[in-house]
């Protein structure tokens, strides 16, 4: 019974959104916020149109363009015809269905997972979905936020609900204090390295412990963002004073008495003492070092002081085949050290690491130094507002003086749907979330790391231990 059985944060958010429980346990789950972008929505709107259905709650929906758009000057429109068609299709759909929309030249435009929290649209205790797996980002606010496919996008547009069964509860507790030079990105990469890319499958991960509590909201978003890389559809962090301070004053957040009412409710959300988790993993933050991925799966990660493992030590056939393929694709040898590996490109951006705090961390390393001669380095802010804030702090000047490119907001080289992509064989130090084969461009080689580590790689021209930069 509610109120008597101790419940987790996930249980509470889930329970409060069950519209109806069907006989087999499938729930009609109410969705408070539906974010949508140009890549995974056209087929959903088309099906609505064919079925003569409307968007059930346009006022719970927000559309933005981010995946396909160039990050150079956009005043002249989009050159690439297929990208342009997707953007134009979204623009027609938002008009036809009355959905609120931030167009490409709106200062609020940006990566969907940056702008939801930034605008106060993503709030604690909510259910939030988007046709994008990194929707888990919004869980940093204490919301149940997860990615959905296009059929489910259509389902939410038409009904404001989803048919779901509850996930299992998983606790990832990070005790202790993070050492200097380490960031939220290193925490989440270390977690994925420990539990694997399927470690959270079927579960929602709640992140807790001293090291998580100590993170600012940007860091919490970085952690929750990569929950999907650990197999979990959603990651959550209990809302606290840090969360409430972040929300206050944001454009679409409740204000005045409504905010007080909301905060009073949000304070009831953290997991009850004695609540049970199906799975618990504990890490000690003091043992975390700056992380870097070496392979083509986010679990293929080691401390910067580490080396590439030997596939021959792997007993499982399919896994050994995957490891060999990884080394071949990445152009690495078993036992090779990561530190000192030359890079061609550095990408600072993505829904994982393109908030103002990320740009400050990178700028602190870049200030007064210069990008290595053979390196192309891009900084792509997560939103127009992040870009404006960075410029007001003079970060753009630091980056430009150091030889970085200073771009417009978008997903950019995280997935190479726009012109920002790697060419075959190029090696990239990237603050993004996925190092899959071809992710940043066909044949491109990705090493995932933190913004500070990426900036350090840009300066030295090779993977570098940021702790060596004083």
């Amino acid at each position, binding site marked *: 019974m509610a109120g008597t059985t101790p419940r987790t944060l996930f249980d509470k958010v889930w329970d409060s959104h069950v519209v109806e429980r069907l006989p087999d346990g499938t729930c*009609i789950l109410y969705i408070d916020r539906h974010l949508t972008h140009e890549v995974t929505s056209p087929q959903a709107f088309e099906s609505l149109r064919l079925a003569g259905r409307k968007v059930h709650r346009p006022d719970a929906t927000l559309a933005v363009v981010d995946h396909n758009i160039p990050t150079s000057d956009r005043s002249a429109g989009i050159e690439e015809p297929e990208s342009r068609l997707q953007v134009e299709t979204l623009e027609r759909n938002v008009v036809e269905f009355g959905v609120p929309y931030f167009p490409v030249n709106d200062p609020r435009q940006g990566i969907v997972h940056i702008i939801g929290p930034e605008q106060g649209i993503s709030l604690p205790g909510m259910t939030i979905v988007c046709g994008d797996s990194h929707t888990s980002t919004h869980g940093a606010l204490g919301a149940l936020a997860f990615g959905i*496919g296009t059929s489910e996008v259509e389902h939410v547009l038409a009904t404001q609900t989803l*048919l779901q069964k509850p996930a299992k509860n998983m606790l990832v507790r990070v005790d202790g204090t993070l050492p200097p030079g380490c960031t939220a990105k290193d925490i989440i990469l270390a977690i994925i390295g420990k539990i694997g*890319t399927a470690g959270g499958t079927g579960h929602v991960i709640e992140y807790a412990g001293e090291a998580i509590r100590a993170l600012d909201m940007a860091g919490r978003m970085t952690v929750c963002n990569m929950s999907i890389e650990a197999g979990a559809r959603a990651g959550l962090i209990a809302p606290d004073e840090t969360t409430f301070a972040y929300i206050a004053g944001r454009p679409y957040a409740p204000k005045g008495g409504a905010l007080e009412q909301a905060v009073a409710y949000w304070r009831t959300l953290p997991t009850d003492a004695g609540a049970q988790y199906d799975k618990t993993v504990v890490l000690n933050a003091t043992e975390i070092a700056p992380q870097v991925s070496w392979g083509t799966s986010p679990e293929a990660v080691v401390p910067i002081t580490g080396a590439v493992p030997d596939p021959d030590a792997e007993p499982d056939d399919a896994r050994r085949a995957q490891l060999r393929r990884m080394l071949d694709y990445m152009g690495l040898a078993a036992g090779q050290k990561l530190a000192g590996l030359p890079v061609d490109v550095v990408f600072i951006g993505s829904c994982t690491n393109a908030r103002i705090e990320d740009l400050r961390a990178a700028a602190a390393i870049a200030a007064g130094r210069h990008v290595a001669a053979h390196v192309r380095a891009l900084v792509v802010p997560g939103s127009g507002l992040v870009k404006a804030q960075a410029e007001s702090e003079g970060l753009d000047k630091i980056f430009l003086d150091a030889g970085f490119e200073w771009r417009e907001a978008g997903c950019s080289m995280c997935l190479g749907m726009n012109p920002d992509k790697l060419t075959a064989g190029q090696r990239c130090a990237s603050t993004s979330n996925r190092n899959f084969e*071809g992710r940043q461009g066909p044949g491109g080689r990705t090493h995932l790391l933190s913004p500070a580590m990426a900036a350090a790689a840009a300066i030295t021209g090779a993977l570098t231990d940021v702790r060596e930069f004083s």
Partner: protein
Amino acid sequence: MDKFSHLTATAAPLNLANVDTDKIIPARFLKTIKRTGLGKDLFSALRYNDDGTEKPDFVLNQAKYRGAQILIAGENFGCGSSREHAPWALLDFGIRCVIAPSFADIFHGNCFKNGILPIALPPEICAQLMADAALGHNARLTIDLENQVVVRPDGTKIPFEVDAFRKHCLLNGLDDIGLTLAHAPAIDAYEAKMPAWQPAITGV
């Protein structure tokens, strides 16, 4: 959505773990506003050389697997992005069933929405099916969803689990939205009780 009840077909072995959705269909092919036509780009990097010619050693390029409708794969198949283009590409190629030791959650759900049956079986069973699949079109597998069994070429029946609601939808080719809209009064009642602090997104 096409119904799925019974399938007898060639199975293609793809013995790789953690096949991600970028591998199934790279992002550059997502610039479409349609659901169809993605089959030619399925497994693009595994299937084609840089000049667009086929890699002859890739399983789906071999004559005996070109008509495969079942795929046997390694653990954690479909990890990564939520792109429904992954099941669309599989379906457009002709794949109606994927068997693996485990699946990523979003991909798993997306399959059911498109008439593709994902079957999770223990690794040792998948290894047997992988060996069956290696025999090519002389060794067809049968998938019987009604009775929840995979029938091997030697007639051995392997039972599998499937969510009852999803099975019902697949067997009948049902549209989820229609089912949910039958509960519209419950959704309206829920909305009537929503907390006042939760603001609408207006004035954008």
